[in-house]
Structures are given as C-alpha cells and as structure tokens.
C-alpha cells in the first residue's frame, strides 16, 4: 500500500491519480448511458441533427462536471488551475494553429449554419450527405457510400454548394420532337403529366416552350420546380414518364437525320436519303 501513497507531483499521490482516473471512467460511462437513453427516448421526436447536437452537449457537460468534482481528490486550487489551464491553452493554440483554425472554423460553421446534418452538399470535389458536424471536422458520406472527413477550416474557406438549403429546385430538360408532330398537342400532354405529378410544384408553374428549330426536329425546353428533398428522384423519374407518354400518344422523338439530295444520278433521277 506504500506505493499508493507515493507522491507524484506536489500533494498528488498515485492513489489520487487512480481515484481521478476511476472517476473519469465512471463519468464517461454515465455520459454514454445518458446519451443512449436520450437517443432512445427522443429519436422519433427530434430531427437527427438537433438530437446529435443535444446529446453531444449533454455528454460534454456531464464529463466536465465529473472532472470538476473529481479534481478535489488532487487537492488542486481550481482557480489556479483555470489560470494555468488558460495559459496552457494559449500555448497549445499557438503551437497547433491548424487545430485552432479548425476549431474556430467549426464554431463559425455552427453559428452561420451553411450546412446541416442530412444536407446534400458539394465542397470542392466532394459531393455527398453531411453525416456529422464535429468540432474539428465534418463527416460527409459520398453518394457512393464513402466516408470522408473534411477539416472544418477547408469547409469554412471553400465554396459550399448546398443543394437543399433552398426549399425548391428547378430541373431543366431539353428534348426534340419531329417536325411532323403537333407542338400544341405535345405541350398539352406534357402539362397534363406535370399536373398529375405530385412533386412537380403547382407554383412556380412548369414552363414549356419551343427553344430552337434544330436540324433533326423541334427543340423543346422544359423547366419544372420540385421540392429540393425529392429533386433527384423526380429528375431521374420524369424523362421515363415523358417517353412513355410520347409512345402512348405516338409522338416521334427523331433520331439525328439529314436529307441528302443528288442533283443528278447515272439514271438521271433524283435520290433522297436519310441517316
């Protein structure tokens, strides 16, 4: 038992250190249990991002509180510790500017909130869904399911494209129909499809117009607004529906074609051909 009374530094003995370590472990376990309980109780009542932030905040508070109560076992002067801690903090901050930069960027990201958990974003070459916003870094899951850790400083100093901050997004389609088709009828059937589609927004209304008279046919441009949250599914789903509709209405989508005229032929007749 004599070894437990061995003084390590000042009045701090090995026993104090063990008690402190056990206290910290207990506090971390308590914080984990509380966070698990909160997750179970609130997961169906709160948005995931907000819940994560709440749990993280409570965990940090419990751990800090536990350490605060465990410290007297060292007979530390807490006031003195704060002063020393502040000084050490400054030294660490100067010594590790990158970490400090990431930390302050993380705080600014939390305040400014250009991204939130669950948002679809692009930062530089990284596209995906925001999984976690941590103090030093942000976790993005790419659309291929790859885990990417982006330092907060990089996020803060880069152009952020957030695809879902605005509630609605516009989709543009360009399609071509044959010169022999009735443009009004084609527009009417497409508008009917949009009217019946739940996520093609009623306002702003869809726009459809002849944008060019092309080499192979009449070029039609379509703009539709959809809720940002379902943008991808609507964007990938509508062309197939339009194609089905054209097939049903027997509206031709022409292949590239060119009319070739031979002004004279060996037999003297005129030949027309297309490809």
């Amino acid at each position: 038992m004599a070894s437990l009374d061995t003084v390590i530094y000042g009045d701090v003995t090995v026993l104090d250190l063990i008690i402190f370590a056990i206290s910290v472990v207990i506090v971390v376990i308590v914080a984990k249990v509380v966070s698990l309980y909160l997750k179970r109780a609130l997961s169906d009542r709160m948005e995931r991002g907000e819940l994560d932030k709440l749990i993280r905040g409570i965990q940090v508070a419990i751990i800090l509180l536990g350490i605060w109560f465990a410290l007297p076992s060292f007979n530390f002067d807490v006031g003195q510790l704060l002063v020393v801690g502040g000084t050490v903090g400054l030294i660490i901050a100067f010594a590790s500017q990158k970490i400090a930069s990431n930390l302050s960027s993380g705080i600014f990201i939390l305040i400014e909130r250009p991204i939130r958990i669950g948002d679809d974003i692009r930062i530089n070459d990284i596209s995906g869904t925001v999984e976690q916003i941590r103090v030093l870094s942000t976790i993005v899951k790419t659309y291929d399911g790859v885990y990417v850790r982006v330092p907060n400083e990089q996020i803060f100093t880069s152009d952020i494209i957030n695809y879902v901050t605005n509630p609605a997004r516009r989709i543009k389609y360009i399609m071509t129909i044959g010169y022999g088709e009735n443009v009004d009828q084609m527009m009417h059937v497409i508008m009917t499809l949009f009217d019946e589609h739940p996520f093609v927004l009623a306002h702003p209304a869809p726009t459809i117009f002849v944008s060019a008279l092309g080499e192979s046919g009449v070029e039609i441009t379509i703009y539709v607004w959809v809720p940002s949250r379902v943008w991808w599914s609507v964007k990938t789903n509508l062309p197939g529906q339009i194609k089905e509709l054209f097939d049903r209405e027997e509206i031709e989508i022409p292949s590239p074609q060119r009319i070739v005229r031979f002004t004279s032929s060996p037999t003297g007749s005129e030949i027309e051909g297309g490809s």
Partner: protein
Amino acid sequence: MFGEFDYTFRYDSNDVSIHVDQSEGFYKYFRKSAGESITKAISGGSGIMAINPVEPVNLPQEVTSYLEIHFTPVAVEPASTQLVYLNFPIEIGVFLESKGDFDILDIFSLATPKYSLYGPPEEGIITRYHESPVSGTLPHTDRLKEGVVSLTIANTSRSWIEVSRVVLDCRELFLYYSDIVSIIARMDILSKDIADVRSENRPLREGMKPSVLLSKARKTLIPEKIPFMMEFGVGD
C-alpha cells in the same frame, strides 16, 4: 369507416377495402385502395384499431408540414371579419391503440396529392396544395376524400384586402370528424402580405370526435405553440 374498432372490423366500398384476418398465428391487416394493396402483420390481439382523417401531408412522401388552400379571391373590408367555408384534401390514418398509446399502421388517401411553393424559391416553404371553391355556407363533401375548413378571416388592416389563399401548419392542426371532417381556423390579416393563421381546438358541430393525428402519434416535440405567420402574401 372512421372510429375505433376491434380486429373483426371490415370495411368494403368501391374505393377502399380494409379488413384484419387471423392466420399463421398473426393478425394480418389488409388494405386495398387506389390500385394499391398493403398487408401488415400485427402482433397481439388486445389492441384497438382507430381509423380517422389525418393531416394531408404524408403522401406520397413527407416533404412538408404545411397545407396551402387556394380559393376564389374574397375581398374583405377593413376592420371586419368574414366567415368562409373551404374544402381540403384528407389522408386516412389507421392506428393501433393499446394502453392509451397510438402507433401508425397505415396511411392512405383517395385524394390526389399535389405540392407547391409558398413564397420565393430561396426562402419560401413547400406546401401541400389544394384548390377549393369558397362558400358562405357549409359545403357538401365526400368525407373519405375531403374535409371542410371553417375559416374566419379577420382584416385588422386599414385597407381592403383580397384573400385567395391560406396556409395551415399541420403540426398545429386540430381535426374533428363525424359525418363530415372539419378544421376550424382563424386568419388575422395584418397587411396584404402578412397574416397569422391558427387552428382552433374545437369541433364544427356538437358530437364530432377529435382525430388522432400523426404529429401526436409520433410524439413529435413541438417547442412552441405560435400561430403560423403567412409572410409572403394572402392573395395571388
């Protein structure tokens, strides 16, 4: 079809067929409507099934909690109140109830869903969109598809205001049903651009039952009960 039933319940009409069978040691819930068939197993047989209208913002996928109703413009004179009746689409929720706890089993609708944007694309809100006739008397509705909104429009401004839409926050909605489905709402117009809208927790007629709503069944935490502020205009 609306009400609380045990598992022997059966409902068949041209549009909807709902029943629960007992097979392979389970109760099985079957629903057929609008070309869609659903089968779900239910464990335990001591529960009650509650079927009632719910807030119409869940199908085909939940993208908003707001309902926007467009109607024929009504010019409301300054410092006056006008009562109008509108209709709104409903969705039907099938809940399992046991020991006072509700859980959603199925949601379906006989109304066609359509969504819209209230306000500009950069700061507006997505809404479930519905166009309704406006009436000074209680309109006739098919209660499996539509409900009635009794909307009191109070113009507190100093000028005539033309009102042609109302946006209701479905997290704060109170739905009642009997032979009709109803919401009582009040719209306090502050200017042609701004109005406060709230749903009142009372039935349109005596004897109507309150609906179990999804926001309540999901036990969603709603931090504050404040009226929804329409800040992008009350007219077209």
